[in-house]
């Protein structure tokens, strides 16, 4: 969806070896639903249909070339060994068109350094993508990242095209059933305690931003939303129920329906529905 909205470009760096929760056939179906023609590079030596595909194949299918992986140890065969708690080597500066943090930043104790490293390694025009635990993921990492961390850091450092999507997942059978994707609108949702979920839902945040030639990496943001708007929402997983429900005492206005984005069933059919 995000590749369609604003196409990604390589070279691609992934933090850690990551896999999709979808097999090769499911991925091809998903690309077909989205109207994306798979790149032939990704179709060489196809894996068994029911095996989850890794990020390397996904990005080849998207025509973004060969993926490189950065990790703190050589344990999983990463090409670049670096600790994001420390400044990355200078030769990695301005190297990547896309950096995917699919679940690393929450384990980095020094988040400021981790974010600075990410911003430094991007080419101007390159994009950072974070997918991080946001709520009902206690002790998954050191912290759960709130959207305001990414929003305020990238805004303070002059990045463009800031975009967040809340991912509501079922706690039980997280990989098998219905996820909802709800747009994070900072104007209505920036307030403290703005988003809640039930004990049956876990929430992750997808956040992306694009570096430009004037972007910085070392500005430390103050939280833009402190005090906030008073708007409060409950966001749920599952196809059947309202994906987002307003629970604050005052009406935040007519923007709410725009938040509802897409529902993805990773069940047997591995279907993707546009809303």
């Amino acid at each position, binding site marked *: 969806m995000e590749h369609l909205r604003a196409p990604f470009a390589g070279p691609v760096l992934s933090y850690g070896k990551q896999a999709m929760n979808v097999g090769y056939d499911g991925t091809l179906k998903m690309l077909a639903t989205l109207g994306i023609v798979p790149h032939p590079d990704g179709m060489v030596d196809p894996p068994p249909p029911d095996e989850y595909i890794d990020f390397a194949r996904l990005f080849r299918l998207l025509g973004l070339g060969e993926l490189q992986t950065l990790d703190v140890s050589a344990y999983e065969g990463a090409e670049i060994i670096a600790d994001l*708690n420390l400044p990355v080597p200078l030769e990695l500066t301005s190297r990547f068109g896309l950096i995917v943090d699919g679940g690393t930043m929450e*384990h980095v*104790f*020094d*988040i*400021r*350094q981790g974010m600075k490293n990410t911003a430094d390694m991007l080419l101007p025009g390159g994009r950072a993508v974070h997918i991080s635990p*946001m*709520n*009902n*993921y*206690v*002790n*998954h*990492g*050191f*912290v*759960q*990242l*709130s*959207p*305001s*961390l990414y929003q*305020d*850091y990238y805004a303070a450092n002059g990045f463009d095209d800031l975009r967040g999507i809340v991912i509501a997942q079922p*706690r039980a059978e997280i990989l098998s059933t219905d996820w909802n994707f709800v747009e994070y609108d900072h104007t209505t*949702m*920036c*307030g*403290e*305690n*703005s*988003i*809640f*979920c*039930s*004990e049956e839902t*876990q*929430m992750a945040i997808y956040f992306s931003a694009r570096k430009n030639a004037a972007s910085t990496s070392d500005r*430390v*943001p*103050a*939280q833009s*939303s*402190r005090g*906030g708007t008073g708007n409060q929402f*409950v966001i749920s997983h599952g196809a059947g129920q309202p994906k987002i429900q307003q*629970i604050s005492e005052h009406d935040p206005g007519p923007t709410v329906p725009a938040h509802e984005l897409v529902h993805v069933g990773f069940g047997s059919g591995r279907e993707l529905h546009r809303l």
Partner: protein
Amino acid sequence: MFESLGLRPHTDGLADPPPGKAEIDFARVIALLGLGALQTLDADLNLPVPPELAARFGLIVDGGTMEYVFDIRQGMMNTAAMLRAGGRIVHVSPVNNHVNRGFAQRSPTFYHDYYVENGFDDVRGIMMVQPRSNTLGRRWNMFQYDHVTLGGVNSMFCSEETQLGVYFTARKNAASTSDRIPVQSYFTRVYDGMDALPGQYVITYEPAQLNARQISDPEPRSGAVALFTPIWSLRGDAGRDS
């Protein structure tokens, strides 16, 4: 509250009492406890604090600041550096269902792993179970954070009517450091081939009791549910009972 705890208020705190119903500030609590005059810091914790503040305090209270400090590592280093040997840090921080309250919600393993890595003593957490609506006007339930049972990933979930906070404390000693960066203890255990701390619980706020439903299978450790015996219940309305 002091009476029910059997604490004798210090005379310093009884001078010029404020109106009975008014909320009292930290300065008066500290004076009532006989801890002298409170100093308040409003320096930028994102930057190293001035060297003259090193090893100055016997107690540092972070009652909801650290979650707004973008440079988490520097904020923690500053706090540890400002404590005297023997001094204690107290954090009270949002843990769950507090999205956008601060840049990041703290998981208990964050404080646990940092203070253990830096050689602090008496590392102790208390989970605070709070109602989402009228949070300050209703009773909170508290239970001890047991890292052996609850230190694993995704160990605590709550309903949309429940918020979780953590009280965390640790004591500096003469050999404590402040600059060591921890690896999350869950992963250290897994890499070392130890048990993966499998406890998972749904914690739901109810005014009269603590409701913790175990959802991990099998039970992480015999009798672990007993950990959720409320150790404290605090009512924040006019009566301020404890």
